[in-house]
């Protein structure tokens, strides 16, 4: 049992932690977690691979291959822990930063880049992976998730929904309406709030006077704050919350207290609004290092294990890079595709006119292609 000391960073007594930054395993009376050595090692693998993928995507943006990238650096544990708590038929609704959750849902990492390269708005089939498209408008997806959960409820489904959002989104009307609808209909949904401390440049204090997890109480469902850099706490608490929702007990809020170690996106410059010392402090709480510390301390992994993961990560990065560079360019007439499921004479007419217009320039296009 851990002592009920106020948490060093959050000041909260109630933060659930199962693995300390030093790699010490803790027990929590409400969130027991049985985990095998193999599972522990595979968690490390996921965390490391997702970070490597993210680093490669950032590099691709810097080299002009992506228009923008929203890095998950620092939030790997929150995403892998919660993502691995889901069952195949549960449904997840991400923001635009849930690359780790996408990984857990079996979405090809390459396809995440399509949105950021600008070839389409989402390269995966939400139904195939039970992972909705990324949503850029802050908080909007929490209502979709709630409606989807209401649909599951009507279908007699034994699964549940998880909705991802952040500390900034917690101020949006849509998130608050999602809480109200979910509570009112007792929908099977877990609201997974990654509090990474920063909504671009605005700190959490501007969003809330109270710790965000406590908001759930006012809406009539449970809220828990967990160490978002602790993959075990994220796994155990999400697992329990999802089961709570599946069992028909209604919504549940998890606030994963974490830190956005990188910029908001590649267009952002965090040196303008936060101190370097803050980042240095959080580096000591790195979500991957503590798993490595646990594995090493307990003799569960050796140099060969880490080398193998590093090689695998290198291969993943190379594969993702190659896929990005060889991504087919969309064709001009793709603009007109799928505007309506039932078609539209207006879109058809504009498509035909633009096609005709382009045809008039075909010689020019051919000439350019010849160089």
């Amino acid at each position, binding site marked *: 049992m851990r002592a009920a000391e106020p948490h060093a960073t959050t000041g909260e007594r109630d933060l659930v932690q199962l693995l300390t930054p030093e790699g010490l395993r803790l027990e929590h009376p409400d969130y027991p977690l049985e985990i095998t050595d193999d599972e522990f090692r595979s968690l490390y693998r996921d965390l490391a691979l997702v970070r490597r993928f993210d680093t490669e995507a950032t590099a691709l943006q810097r080299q002009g291959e992506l228009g923008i990238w929203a890095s998950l650096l620092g939030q790997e544990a929150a995403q892998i822990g919660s993502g691995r708590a889901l069952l195949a038929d549960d449904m997840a609704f991400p923001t635009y930063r849930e690359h780790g959750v996408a990984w857990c849902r079996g979405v090809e990492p390459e396809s995440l880049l399509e949105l950021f390269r600008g070839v389409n708005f989402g390269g995966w089939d939400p139904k195939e992976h039970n992972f909705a498209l990324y949503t850029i408008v802050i908080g909007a997806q929490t209502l979709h998730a709630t409606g989807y959960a209401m649909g599951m409820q009507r279908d007699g489904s034994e699964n549940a929904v998880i909705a991802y959002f952040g500390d900034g989104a917690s101020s949006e009307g849509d998130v608050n309406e999602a809480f109200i609808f979910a509570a009112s209909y007792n929908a099977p949904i877990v609201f997974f709030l990654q509090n990474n401390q920063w909504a671009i440049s605005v700190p959490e204090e501007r969003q809330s006077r109270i710790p965000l997890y406590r908001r759930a109480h006012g809406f009539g469902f449970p809220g828990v704050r967990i160490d978002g850099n602790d993959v075990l706490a994220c796994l155990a608490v999400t697992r329990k919350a999802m089961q709570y929702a599946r069992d028909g007990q209604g919504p549940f809020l998890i606030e994963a207290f974490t830190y956005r170690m990188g910029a908001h996106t590649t267009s952002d410059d965090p040196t303008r609004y936060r101190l370097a010392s803050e980042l240095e402090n959080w580096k000591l709480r790195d979500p991957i290092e503590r798993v490595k510390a646990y594995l090493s301390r307990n003799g569960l992994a050796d140099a060969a294990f880490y080398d193998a993961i590093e090689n695998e990560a290198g291969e993943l990065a190379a594969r993702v890079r190659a896929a990005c560079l060889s991504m087919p360019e969309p064709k001009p007439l793709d603009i007109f595709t*799928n505007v*309506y499921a039932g078609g*539209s004479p207006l879109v058809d007419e504009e498509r035909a006119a633009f096609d005709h217009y382009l045809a008039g320039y075909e010689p020019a296009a051919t000439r350019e292609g010849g160089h």
Partner: protein
Amino acid sequence: MAPIAISRALNMGLRKALESDPKVIIMGEDVGKLGGVFRVTDGLQKDFGEDRVMDTPLAESGIIGTAIGLAMRGYRPICEIQFDGFVFPAYDQIVSQLAKLHYRSQGRVPMPVVIRIPFGGGIGAVEHHSESPEALFAHVAGLKVVACSNAADAYTMIQQAVASADPVIFFEPKRRYWEKAEIDTDTPLSAAIPLHAARVVRPGRHLTLLAYGPMVKTCLDAAKVAADEGHEVEVVDVRSLSPIDWPTITESVRHTGRCVIVHEAQTFLGMGAELAARITERCFYDLQAPVLRVGGFATPYPPSRLEEYFLPDLDRVLDAVDRSLGY
């Protein structure tokens, strides 16, 4: 069958939709026991249960946002927005989410959602209860927008909207809810005039009046008066505001050579602007006069004691008809 009111025709159409597909659900504020503030959903919750006719929390963005999630799960929600002026809290969900999801998902996530909105003025209501925001929706790619003007269309069009694979914003002419007409419940939907077709509701050869929703009746009344003065005015009920049935409209205007467009919404950048621009492009050599528009002023909707001046009426329509015929 005895003539029935538009509100009742909508109710019958909704009932048919609920009967024909178990995935159809109705959701909105006060749509349950109360049957909606205009009684359009009267009795439906009693017969289909609270899971299919749902009173929602009082939050418009929440209504549309959760409807989107339900549609992702395979449902076909029909959302009621209680009054035109209350749709704006849901505007983001409609414009940024509902309208784009099929496109964003490369056709993988269809959005068969209907949003019913009573619109327009003329009932002496307090502010925010008399708006005509149709152009704000017709401007958005991915949405389909229709307006019914009579009971027969109301009955058919609401069922067609529910059957549509795309999101449909369904405008109901609030002040005409109680206007009665014969409706046809025998013709199957598949044999009915398509949802996105316009219709000539009164033939004529001297001038075309284009209108939709509540203004169709006003235009028909104007056409009768004009006929007494020897002018044969054709009235076309545009019905679908997105997409627009250009063949029916241009055929009428080519035939008459003159066109006046009438709607309650502000004339500036209203539906009439698009209609006039395209008609001018397509019927240029057949036009005997510039296309004229009659509509609301470039002001907020006024207090109800002034609305009779704001809303196009018989005289303002006839004034425009005279001006057009004067060219």
